[in-house]
């Protein structure tokens, strides 16, 4: 057994795990989870369609640049504007609904967006299932890392990747500081009051509906920025990358870190993607080395197993540690009625 375990390249697995924890996916999900944290963690809104905000953000920047030939900075603005419009469209009518109804409406909205984006009706703008490709170049023209590859010890990034990761994480940190300050402000305290007891907040003369709408817009805009970062990092925007399951991954990231804490989306996302990479690469090597016979698991099934692990992880977290790593159980009873 020891000899067999020695055959596995643990160094490489460690490198891949750390890279995944710092990589594009971790950065995008940290940002998206920060938006969801404002919705659910601070205000108690059950948003099950967060991927919809990412989609409109991504398509905003894609359509503006690739289809309409706008200036890339205007494209970024359009992505945020799209996310804000979506938040208004969703929020104005539904924020009066019960929490679980809001959940169903938001997940439906995210699917409506995906269906529309992949439809032939909107093909002139979105190019259907193939998606848009020619928009990221103008951002990468600003990339100061001109070399194709950079490596530090075992770590290895392409120049473009390094650029977007640094910008993305930098922006994520800035946003985290901003949210930290916001939530200490009177405005943030009202949000938390609404989460704890909406009626009490209303009784104190706060317009709960308007505060909830503001929270939905702020979190939605951050989700839109996450979507923009994702499509720029991958240089493509395709409808089927915005499946509902992405929303649930963001939920897992948020719950893993701890709902209602400033740093939890960042740490949660790093751990989530690191763990996924760890599980995947350990299993891949086990399969390659023959510890796991192909009748039980082949390379294809390793990828699927990761998703099964997410499902199990989400259930176990919710049952045994709903406050995640950083949260406090008292503050976050997770009953967003």
């Amino acid at each position, binding site marked *: 057994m020891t000899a067999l375990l020695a055959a596995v390249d643990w160094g490489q697995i460690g490198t891949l795990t750390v890279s995944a924890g710092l990589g594009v996916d971790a950065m995008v999900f940290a940002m998206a989870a920060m938006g969801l944290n404002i919705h659910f963690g601070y205000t108690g809104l059950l948003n099950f369609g967060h991927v919809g905000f990412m989609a409109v953000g991504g398509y905003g920047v894609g359509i503006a640049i690739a289809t309409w030939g706008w200036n890339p900075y205007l494209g970024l603005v359009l992505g945020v504007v799209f996310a804000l419009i979506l938040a208004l469209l969703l929020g104005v009518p*539904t924020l009066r609904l019960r929490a679980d*109804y809001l959940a169903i409406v938001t997940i439906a909205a995210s699917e409506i967006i995906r269906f529309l984006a992949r439809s032939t009706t909107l093909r002139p703008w979105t190019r259907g299932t193939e998606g848009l490709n020619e928009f990221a170049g103008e951002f990468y023209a600003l990339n100061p890392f001109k070399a194709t590859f950079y490596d530090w010890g075992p770590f290895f990034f392409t120049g473009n990747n390094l650029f977007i990761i640094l910008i993305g994480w930098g922006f994520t940190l800035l946003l985290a500081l901003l949210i930290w300050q916001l939530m200490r402000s009177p405005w943030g305290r009202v949000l938390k009051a609404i989460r704890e007891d909406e009626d009490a907040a209303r009784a104190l003369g706060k317009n709960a509906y308007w505060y909830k709408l503001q929270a939905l817009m702020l979190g939605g805009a951050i989700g839109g920025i996450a979507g923009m970062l994702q499509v720029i990092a991958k240089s493509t925007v395709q409808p089927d990358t915005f499946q509902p399951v992405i929303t649930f991954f963001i939920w897992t990231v948020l719950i893993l870190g701890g709902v209602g804490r400033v740093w939890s989306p960042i740490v949660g996302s790093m751990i989530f993607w690191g763990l996924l990479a760890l599980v995947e690469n350990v299993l891949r090597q086990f399969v390659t080395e023959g510890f796991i016979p192909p009748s039980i698991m082949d390379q294809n099934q390793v990828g699927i197993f990761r998703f099964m692990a997410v499902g199990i992880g*989400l259930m176990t977290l919710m049952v045994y540690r709903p406050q995640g790593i950083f949260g406090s159980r008292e503050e976050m009873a997770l009953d967003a*009625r």
Partner: protein
Amino acid sequence: MRRLRSLEDNPRRVAGLMMLIVAVLTAVPFPALGQEDPTQGVRVKLSFKDEAGETQPAVGVGVIVTTADGTELGAGVTGDDGEFVLATDTGPMTVSIDPSTLPEGVSLRDTEVTSRNIVVDTGRVAIALFPLQVGDGPIDTGSNITARQVLQLTLEGIKLGLFLAMGAIGLSLIFGTTGLVNFAHAEMVTWGMFAAFVAEGAATAVGLGGTKTGTILFASIAAMLVGGATGYLLDGAIFSRLRKRGTSLIAQMVVTIGLGILARYVILYFFGGSSRFFKSVSGQSAMRIGLVEITPSDLISVGLSIGVLVLVGLALQRTRIGRAMRAVADNRDLAESSGIDVQRVIRLVWVAGGALAALGGVFLGQADQVQWETGTRILLLIFAGVTLGGLGTAYGALVGCLMIGLGIQVSTLWIPSELKNLGALFLMVFILLIRPQGILGRKQRIG
């Protein structure tokens, strides 16, 4: 996750009946491939419907198969049966056809899609679909609507609505009795579908059932048993305990999301991403009844689902336990204080809901295909039906699903069929906004 997207464009039977003259891959079950065919590779079958409605193979069409990085693996033309098969390694492939070699007067329905990306799994034949039509350009479906189309789509709508209702009743009753929105319920439908698929294979292998009808009947009953047992286990092992611990409904809802993800990928893990068919019923040709057409298996499914739904209704109205279910759904505290064993009732709702969803899955699998993503695809339709009818009521779920099914199918008279599900989602959002308690629901405090 995205690798089977190409199969999702599989045109439905409706499309063909709407005079969209399409070529559909004939429903050939996988293991039934002929001797000369490889067991792993790529397969293209091109056919179209001529003016008489007969399916004709498209012969002599150029096909090229390349790997993801553009290396050509093989090329050729479709044979007399309109088929082109190539044995390949596993992995992502691109299959392209040459539209200029199509038979005269035949064109691609989607003129821009001349290539499809597919993934070849170990031991599977991946299929690339290219819908064909007689004539050029998109066929105008908006102008001449005939009575026959309307009737046919109504029938399709009722069919879809009934099948959705099988899944929706359990969802609605679980919500009614416990307040839990079960995001994993649609996976129970997929679960039952695959249980039946396995049972069908087993029955065929040991020669049980004898006839095809017997085999599929056996498979359906097996699926219901598995579905019921799953419901029992889920409530017993997870949700009854969470209720006892006082876990909030929101937290329980997140648990169902995790459960749904787990169930979906367990199915994908063991069965792979390819679409399957129930061998006992595949390849049936549609019968004509009056102005409408339906396959015998679908006709039986529709009859059976009506029968089962009537039985459920009778059970809810007439039997002691059925009344207890409605009482718990209506007012749990009152029911409990009048001596009803609420936990037992809830357990039974889970069992019945699981069994019904499984049967719905068998029907859906017969009408369409056996596919791991079915649950994801119908989850929101079931939600739409349930919220439309009124969350928590059994009859509401039935009425709502019928309306959703009809809405989806009949709306294809005016809107492109790729957008037909959107109407259902919009309807759901709209209903939630103007009448959140649904059509048959009772008004309660909202918000």
